[in-house]
């Protein structure tokens, strides 16, 4: 029986649950002996010119070895995203200007960690405040410019449409509904903050230990920033404590750590505090959206328009490209004849944006799902019925959408039906009706989402090396960079399934760029459909190679040979007892290793439907999630334990954005949610257990049928929960509430509707 599809506990866990995993700040590597600790001095002001920095007092503080400012650092300021305005470069330490609260202005190196904070307080920076621009609409006016040389706060022209919007987009619609909505800024907040340690070897090469989701591309980025050859830089990833997209690639701090290490001739360690992380780590979402949906009273949706303004933050990073995904996925699961979308990206005096679980796709789903509910509301149709009426029919696949997305396979109506049935939708509506009649203080809300998302997009190639050793163990090298997803277990399962060697004997290695020079890392839910398949293919090829060698040894025909998966040996088909040779024996005779590079060639499109059941106390506005019924279909399930775990985590983040989380700044750009005490990341007490429903629809894009599950849960749950809370108070006249649907917001919406 194949191990694939079975519930396998993780091989990572024995270490994780005894000694504990080893994160970058835990390292006691001898190469870091005598390392200095880096403490960064950060701007407390959102927008200012720096008139002077006095480091003399800091230099005299106990344990201080050196203090550096922007003037000392001879790394050229970096354009962190190629399509951004060329003037919007980010220095490694601020020189003449700071553009967000938290921007680093000086680097203090001390013998011991505690001394760093003391010394940093003594660095005296003179700021001349400038006007601050925090809101995107204000930033678009260009009245307050972050980069005078750019002459604008507009970051990129990459999303500009090639033509004008058609004037007749909604011409044949009986009903048109339009609304401005917000997809608010959220913080990724992985439990492990950012960390990097660097040392330079006698051979002139630099090694950086760091916490990232992409070992190889981070290496290339940092080498570029430092102006050195990528082959002179080695990145080694210890365990990584979560990323969620915010640890994609490298942070400029990695290059700074390396530069400092070279400058002082000693290794340097850096590990940021949570407060630093809440302003320094890239954040997610941050879009103002105008949704316009039109159709007929019988529920046929005929046209949809989405206009996006996206916030880049102060220094444009990956956030610049995300609206491209939002536009691509704008119509969602629906077969809408006319679709039009636009996007702009603008700089503000806030933390930079980049990828966060879903990265551009949740924004699209949130918008179309809100639009569908608004349309349903307008024509008086049940929101589930409306969705089912408009989803793309299964016969139409593969289906290229008006957004240009090549949907591979989907059963959108079936997913909706399954979710509704499991949730007992009719029963829920009856309960809701009963509570409304009684005028209960606690009302019931039911929210639905139908979603599709794009995974593996943009990075289709991945490699794996599988080697069987003479002692019967196996080493797998992968170009992915797991940070909680269990690749060590999952890739071992894939190799084991081909080799017939148990997973306990299979070690999976990632993240050392000397061992694995090529790889695209872990992001966009790409790993299984590229990296996993690369492992599978490498193992399959290894078996073929083994059979070739065994054929000679056993004097048999290759076609008569097969792998006995209970013993990991090459045997003659149908001849038990005949001579056989184990893979280990073959490895003893000659290296038994295969490197395989797999090109997935195309993205895949997992999909699903969520039904969220919430209760809202209309006297206080407080909403709590009672149930989430989730269908998340990503094709065949490799390991249900890991698969469901990704859904749970994703769903939790979706609920959190809908109800709790928002990064908030005041008008002066001061963060109001700069710690875990203020920022609404949920605990177990805020969440229910989840009802996961299984559906597996293969993709034709790859031979194993896999799509990616990493982000789907978030994409499905967030709109379902928002819709549910609004549904709970729709009988009071409320038709929309922006996220997060805090008690205050819900209550104010109820008051407003009552006027």
């Amino acid at each position: 029986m194949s191990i694939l599809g079975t519930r396998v506990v993780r091989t990572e866990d024995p270490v994780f649950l005894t000694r504990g995993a080893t994160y970058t700040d835990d390292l006691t590597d001898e190469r870091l002996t005598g390392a200095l600790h880096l403490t960064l001095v950060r701007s407390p002001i959102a927008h200012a010119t720096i008139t002077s920095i006095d480091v003399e007092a800091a230099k005299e503080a106990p344990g201080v070895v050196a203090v550096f400012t922007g003037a000392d650092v001879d790394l050229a300021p970096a354009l962190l995203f190629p399509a951004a305005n060329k003037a919007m470069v980010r220095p490694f330490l601020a020189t003449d200007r700071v553009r967000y609260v938290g921007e680093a202005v000086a680097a203090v190196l001390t013998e011991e960690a505690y001394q760093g904070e003391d010394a940093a307080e003594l660095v005296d920076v003179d700021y001349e405040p400038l006007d601050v621009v925090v809101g995107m609409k204000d930033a678009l006016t260009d009245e307050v410019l972050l980069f005078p040389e750019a002459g604008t706060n507009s970051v990129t022209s990459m999303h500009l449409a090639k033509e004008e919007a058609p004037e007749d987009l909604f011409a044949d619609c009986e009903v048109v509904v339009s609304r401005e909505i917000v997809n608010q800024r959220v913080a990724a907040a992985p439990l492990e903050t950012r960390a990097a340690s660097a040392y330079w070897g006698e051979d002139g090469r630099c090694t950086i230990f760091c916490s990232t989701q992409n070992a190889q591309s981070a290496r290339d980025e940092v080498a570029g920033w430092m102006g050195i050859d990528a082959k002179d830089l080695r990145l080694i990833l210890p365990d990584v404590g979560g990323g969620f997209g915010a640890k994609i690639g490298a942070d400029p701090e990695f290059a700074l750590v390396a530069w400092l290490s070279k400058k002082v001739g000693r290794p340097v360690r850096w590990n940021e505090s949570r407060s630093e992380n809440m302003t320094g780590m890239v954040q997610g979402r941050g879009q103002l959206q105008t949704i316009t949906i039109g159709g007929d009273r019988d529920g046929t949706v005929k046209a949809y328009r989405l206009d996006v303004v996206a916030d880049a933050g102060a220094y444009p990073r990956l956030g610049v490209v995300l609206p491209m995904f939002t536009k691509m996925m704008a119509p969602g699961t629906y077969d809408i004849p006319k679709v039009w979308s636009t996007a702009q990206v603008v700089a503000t005096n806030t933390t930079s944006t980049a990828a966060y679980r879903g990265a551009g796709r949740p924004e699209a789903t949130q918008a179309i799902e809100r639009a569908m509910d608004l349309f349903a509301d307008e024509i008086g149709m049940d929101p589930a019925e409306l969705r089912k009426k408009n989803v793309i029919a299964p016969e139409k696949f593969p289906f290229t959408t008006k957004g240009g997305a090549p949907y591979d396979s989907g059963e959108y109506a079936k997913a909706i039906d399954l979710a509704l049935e499991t949730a007992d939708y009719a029963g829920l509506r009856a309960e809701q009706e009963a509570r409304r009649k009684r005028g209960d203080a606690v009302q019931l809300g039911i929210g639905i989402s139908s979603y599709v998302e794009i995974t593996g997009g943009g990075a289709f190639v991945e490699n794996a090396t599988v080697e069987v050793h003479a002692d019967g163990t196996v080493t797998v090298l992968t170009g992915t960079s797991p940070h909680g997803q269990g690749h060590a277990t999952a890739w071992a399962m894939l190799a084991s399934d081909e080799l017939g060697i148990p997973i306990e004997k299979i070690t999976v290695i990632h993240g050392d760029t000397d061992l694995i020079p090529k790889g695209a890392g872990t992001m966009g839910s790409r790993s299984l459909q590229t990296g996993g398949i690369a492992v599978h293919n490498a193992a399959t090829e290894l078996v073929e190679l083994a059979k070739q060698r065994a054929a000679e040894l056993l004097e048999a025909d290759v076609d008569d040979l097969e792998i006995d998966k209970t013993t990991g040996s090459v045997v003659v088909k149908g001849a038990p007892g005949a001579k056989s040779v184990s893979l280990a024996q073959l490895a003893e005779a000659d290296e038994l290793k295969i490197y395989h590079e797999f090109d997935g060639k195309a993205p895949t499109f997992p999909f699903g439907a969520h039904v969220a059941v919430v209760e809202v106390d209309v006297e206080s506005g407080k909403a709590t999630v009672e149930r989430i019924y989730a269908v998340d279909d990503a094709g065949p399930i490799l390991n249900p334990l890991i698969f469901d775990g990704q859904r749970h985590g994703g769903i939790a983040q979706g609920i959190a954005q809908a109800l709790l989380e928002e990064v908030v700044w005041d008008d002066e750009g001061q963060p109001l949610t700069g710690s875990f005490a203020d920022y609404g990341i949920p605990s177990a007490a805020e969440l229910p257990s989840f009802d996961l429903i299984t559906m597996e629809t293969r993709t034709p894009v790859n031979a194993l049928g896999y799509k990616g599950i990493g982000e789907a849960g978030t994409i499905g749950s967030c709109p379902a929960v928002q819709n549910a809370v609004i549904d709970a108070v729709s009988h009071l006249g409320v038709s929309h509430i922006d996220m997060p649907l805090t008690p205050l917001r819900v209550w104010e919406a109820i008051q407003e509707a009552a006027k």
Partner: protein
Amino acid sequence: MKVEITVNGAITSADVEPRTLLAHYLRENVGLKATNIGCDTTSCGACTVLVDGESVKSCTVLAVQADQQSVTTMEGLGTYADGELTHPVTAAFRQGHGLQCGFCTPGMVMAAVSLIEENPDLTEADVREGLEGNLCRCTGYHNIVRAVLVAAGKDPDAAQAAGTADKTVAPGFSVGEGDK
């Protein structure tokens, strides 16, 4: 100042600044790295250890406060032998996939140990509320809650079914019972 603290059964001592956090004492002076620091506002609980058997956030305890006391970290909870984790809580976490990136895990496990010890008859609601001081970003808590119930000898499916039927009001609503 000199402190002497028994950690996982072994006496440790060091000369530390009074401001040394217990979490740093464990990580740097004793060299036990499992206990992690995830925030600076006593919010996340990744640093949870037991002091004299009770869960505390070691980032909000000074090493000097724990002088002459006894501390247990996750490293002190048993081992991995013959393919099994020997402590019921860590074993349940593994069996139930109650961890992903592992950063919150040592603190979560120690909080669970203390929770079970103080209330052996846990419901799902008890577990969720009892872990409110421990944040996890990866798992969505679903499997963590189940693992703790299993470690407490409860059937997680029954506990979860009871949880949704037994509608104790959600956090933030009344905790008064008035007439007990």
